[in-house]
């Protein structure tokens, strides 16, 4: 048993993969708490898709992928916040138009390349085993930034998530805090792209937090439990994918999905027991 658990760590790329998976799992699940409570799941999915254009542009120009994807993701995150606030267009329409457009631009640019690239394909579905030493540094640095800003804004994010109007009246800047949150979500998505890919990153933002929401009714425990679930799914999924030779991103998401249904079941059982006593 122990041997099976240790076996993957003989490879440096697996060590990096596990470190990345744990960071991504925790970070996505933590930010996912806000995504769930503010009902931003669709935004997370949209930002991920839009960042594809940035990845392709960065690839074609030979610049750093994190830079390209990061710039596009942050711009689109701020863009939807702005259009939603200032425009008369509803949020889901804004996302539906802007983000699919940016995604299409990425595919368009990619399709014009003669040399068909597997690298780009891997961003759609993630390839955590391809995370290099440089990537790990970048991921750790970005994760630190997101973690520190979230910790500093913890109370502001909580208050404005629950009751933005009253928070604003009491002197908080609910608008600015929302923009900061959107940027934090965008950065979280960028960090996660290599691990789980564009298509599946929304699941990591939503599923662990949704599972935690089933089991707690206070905010801080929900966030802590969600982070724990995120790490658990990432590590569990990665082990499974190692032994089943399956796609890592998809396996991680599937483990999270199973966990979510287990949490729903757990809640029902708890309610049934509470009713009986």
């Amino acid at each position, binding site marked *: 048993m122990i041997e099976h658990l240790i076996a993957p760590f003989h490879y440096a790329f697996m060590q990096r993969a596990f470190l990345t998976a744990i960071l991504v799992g925790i970070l996505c699940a933590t930010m996912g708490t806000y995504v769930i409570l503010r009902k931003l799941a669709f935004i997370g999915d949209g930002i991920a898709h839009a960042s594809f254009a940035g990845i392709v542009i960065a690839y074609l120009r030979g610049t750093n992928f994190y830079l390209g994807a990061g710039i596009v993701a942050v711009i689109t995150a701020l863009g939807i916040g702005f259009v939603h606030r200032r425009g008369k267009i509803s949020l889901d329409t804004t996302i539906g138009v802007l983000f699919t457009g940016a995604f299409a631009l990425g595919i368009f640019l990619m399709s014009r390349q003669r040399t068909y690239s597997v690298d780009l394909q891997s961003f759609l579905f993630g390839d955590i085993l391809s995370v290099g030493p440089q990537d790990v540094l970048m991921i750790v640095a970005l994760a630190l930034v997101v973690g520190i800003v979230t910790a500093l804004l913890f109370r502001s994010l909580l208050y404005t998530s629950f009751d933005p109007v009253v928070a604003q*009246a*009491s002197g908080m800047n609910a608008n600015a805090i929302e923009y900061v949150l959107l940027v934090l979500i965008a950065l979280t998505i960028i960090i996660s792209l290599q691990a789980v890919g564009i298509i599946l990153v929304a699941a990591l933002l939503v599923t662990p937090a949704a599972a935690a929401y089933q089991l707690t009714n206070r905010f801080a425990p929900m966030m802590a439990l969600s982070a724990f679930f995120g790490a658990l799914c990432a590590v569990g999924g990665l082990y499974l994918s190692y032994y089943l030779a399956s796609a890592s991103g998809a396996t991680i998401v599937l483990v999270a999905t199973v966990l979510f249904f287990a949490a729903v079941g757990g809640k029902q059982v708890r309610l049934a027991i509470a009713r009986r006593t």
Partner: protein
Amino acid sequence: MNDAIIVSNLVVRYENVLALDGASLKAGFGQALGIVGPNGSGKSTLLKTIAGLLPAASGSVCVLGKEPRELPPGTIAYVPQIEAVDWSFPATVWDVVAMGRFPRLGMFRRFGNEDRKAVRRALAQLRMEELSGRHISALSGGQQQRAFVARAIAQEPRVLLLDEPTTGVDEQTEESLREVVRELVAGGMPVLMATHDLDRAADWFDRLVVIDRRVIAIGTPDEVARSGAYAAIREHTHTHGHMRTDR
């Protein structure tokens, strides 16, 4: 006397609707000012503008000598008419009341003993100690209202704005709200409160203002009653019932 709140010639628009059209009034420290008027008369708009939630199209609002958005965090506490919060949000009564402390804490200060004490005091004032561990979705309407007033009290604001806090609550809740307001006023706080309940105005307020997009009458509840503006409003309020459609 120094006035805590000075509103002069205030005009506020929503899109093409003129919600306030040149309203002027003053409220002093240690004074409870009741705001009455028919539905759509701009009571909520007036409170929201004083809270810094809405911009003035023209005219001005001055709270403690400054524009509302320039005041230090935690200065104004505002309790809206209808709390449009998600009742399934993972929070207990304690958690909600504790939020009142957040503005003054800013980014770096810890939630300490002082803050816990303020939360406990606020819960006690609204008689909610036993409910402090209860999830907000398990509260009655009156209890929800008290929780939000308790949050405003825990904030230890310098100005309190209440938008029809007594609508739809039971008599006991109403009485405990009144006691809290009178206590704060006795401590020198200016309190502005929109209300539909004209019968008990004299028990609640030191002064009463009747508005219908602008100020129709202002004075002590007695003076306003004698002015006749009161009766006209009463007529209006009764024909229109207690619809909660005004903003």
